[in-house]
């Protein structure tokens, strides 16, 4: 089933980590195999923030293979070595969990493709997000569990999207969890509720064009599809509108960039979405109770219609 939620504050920052946690926790009955956050925090914009994993959470319910922690240490060493070889300086390093790391990197390059390919050529290493504002945090469990594990409730920023997952198409693991980074574009993330039926056809085409897939989760296609459109010069909104016919199946998805948040709904309107929009805040989710967690007072909400695409700026 899965649940998605997102919000964007216009013209101000807020405690988006805590707000999104409340929204996703309200949707936990839609799935709590894994939960993911894409948070756009307030930063000075100088350094890249790279969230990456060197292994999987092999806790209860995981479909991943158990590995010794020493393997993670070895992979981390290779990552550090590769970064040094590329001239990327690690300014700050955090290892929240043995398999999950956050680096602030001083690295002056616009094209992240080569950078990402080098890092991900290390077996077992996956970049969850790369950007100057975006941080993707995803792990097994419900929203509160993930929030507590990574101390996300203190994150201040302008906007965020998130996902509560009931695994249906692929495994219960971090690599199949949402949000997906719009590889190799800085600060692009996607969450999706639904099922894409032309996943393999599109994947073959996109892989032939040099795009990368890290999982077998159909939702990852949306991130890669939009990234490919933008690589060819389309704006985010143009890419999203193209997806209404380019992607087959049922979907409601959110996409976020460093300064915008968008939603798209398939032409059959088969997946739910409730939206609240005001001058200073847009909040949306699979169910109204998600919005109620940040706006408990009586508000006007609506369901976007079939084939609708909307994009908001901060």
């Amino acid at each position, binding site marked *: 089933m899965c649940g998605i939620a997102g919000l964007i504050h216009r013209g101000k920052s807020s405690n988006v980590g805590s707000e999104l946690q409340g929204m996703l926790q309200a949707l936990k009955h839609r799935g709590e195999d894994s939960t993911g956050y894409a948070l756009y925090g307030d930063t000075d914009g100088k350094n890249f923030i790279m969230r990456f994993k060197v292994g999987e959470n092999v806790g209860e319910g995981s479909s991943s293979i158990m590995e010794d922690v020493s393997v993670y240490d070895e992979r981390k060493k290779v990552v550090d070595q590769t970064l040094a070889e590329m001239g990327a300086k690690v300014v700050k390093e955090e290892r929240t969990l043995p398999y999950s790391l956050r680096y602030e990197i001083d690295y002056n390059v616009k094209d992240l493709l080569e950078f990402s390919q080098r890092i991900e050529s290390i077996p077992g290493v996956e970049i969850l997000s790369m950007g100057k504002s975006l941080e993707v945090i995803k792990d097994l469990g419900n929203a509160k569990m993930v929030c507590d594990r990574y101390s996300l409730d203190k994150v201040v920023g302008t906007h965020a999207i998130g996902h509560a997952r009931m695994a249906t198409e692929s495994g219960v693991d971090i690599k199949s969890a949402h949000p997906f980074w719009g590889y190799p574009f800085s600060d692009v993330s996607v969450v999706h509720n639904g099922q894409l039926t032309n996943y393999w056809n599109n994947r073959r085409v996109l892989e032939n064009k040099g795009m990368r897939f890290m999982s077998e989760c159909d939702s990852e296609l949306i991130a890669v599809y939009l990234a490919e459109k933008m690589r060819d010069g389309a704006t985010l909104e143009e890419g999203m509108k193209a997806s209404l016919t380019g992607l087959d199946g049922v979907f409601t998805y959110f996409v976020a960039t460093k300064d915008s948040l968008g939603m798209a709904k398939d*032409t*059959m*309107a*088969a997946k*739910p979405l*409730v939206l609240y929009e005001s001058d200073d805040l847009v909040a949306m989710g699979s*169910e*109204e*109770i998600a*919005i*109620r967690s940040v706006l*408990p007072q*009586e*508000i*006007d*909400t*609506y*369901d976007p*219609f*079939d*084939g609708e695409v909307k994009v908001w700026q901060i």
Partner: protein
Amino acid sequence: MANLKTVSKKSKAQSMGMHTEVLTGRTQQKFFNPDEAENFYYFGTYDVDFNKRTELDVKDMTAPEANKEIDNLMSQGYGTIVIKNPQGKHSLGVGILNKLNLIFEGSLGYFGMGSCDGPIVRINGRVGWSCAENLMAGKVVIEKNAGSCFGAAIRGGDLICKGSVGARTGIDMKGGTIIIGGDAGAFTGFMMQRGRIIILGDVGINLGDSMYDGTIFVGGEIGSYGSDAVDAELTSSDQDWLKRKLKVAEIGENFDVSKMKKIVAGKKLWNYDNLEPTEKKGAI
């Protein structure tokens, strides 16, 4: 156990071995005697007084707790109940088989007022997916917008949304009336079998797709017609009925119904002219 009765004269289909027996036995249908007053009431319903009014704050209640409390209040004879702080909770007000004035001061989540028979309900907010699903009788008025599958499979009663509604409004409906003050999404009236839908605004693609029967009236633009949905003549009696219905519904009283479009089933999808299966196969 049902008796098996052999049919002596075989039809064409039977001679092909498709079926050779018919089932007979005791009918499941209940026959009501008008003299037996108890047959007009469901078991467990209450004699309520509409002038006896109370309020119920459900802010800190789960949906089952709130619904049980509504039932409890009805058992005490309360005929008018005002629900405070519904806050988008799912499945509120379901399964009420009673005459009752029910007012929600706020919005409901999914499946609000599902499987009801008889209550008069006003929701001063929005409703989520599948509001009033399987409504048998009564009236449900929503002051703001509604989600998808609004009035799915209703059998009777009036379901009124003063704002706009999502996709598949009136899907599989078998009776009753749905009235929309704003716009409606795609697949409105999908597979409807009976009843009427009135939309004063625009409607999305595939209107009345695969409808068996029933009537849809549209005041605005139509995105596209679904399979087998066709235009029909808007008669004077249709207009009279529309005026009366909109007035009673307190919605679009001054709406010019003479310009509305009337859509019905073309009856080409299911109304086969008694062809045998082998003949249908040949026709395809």
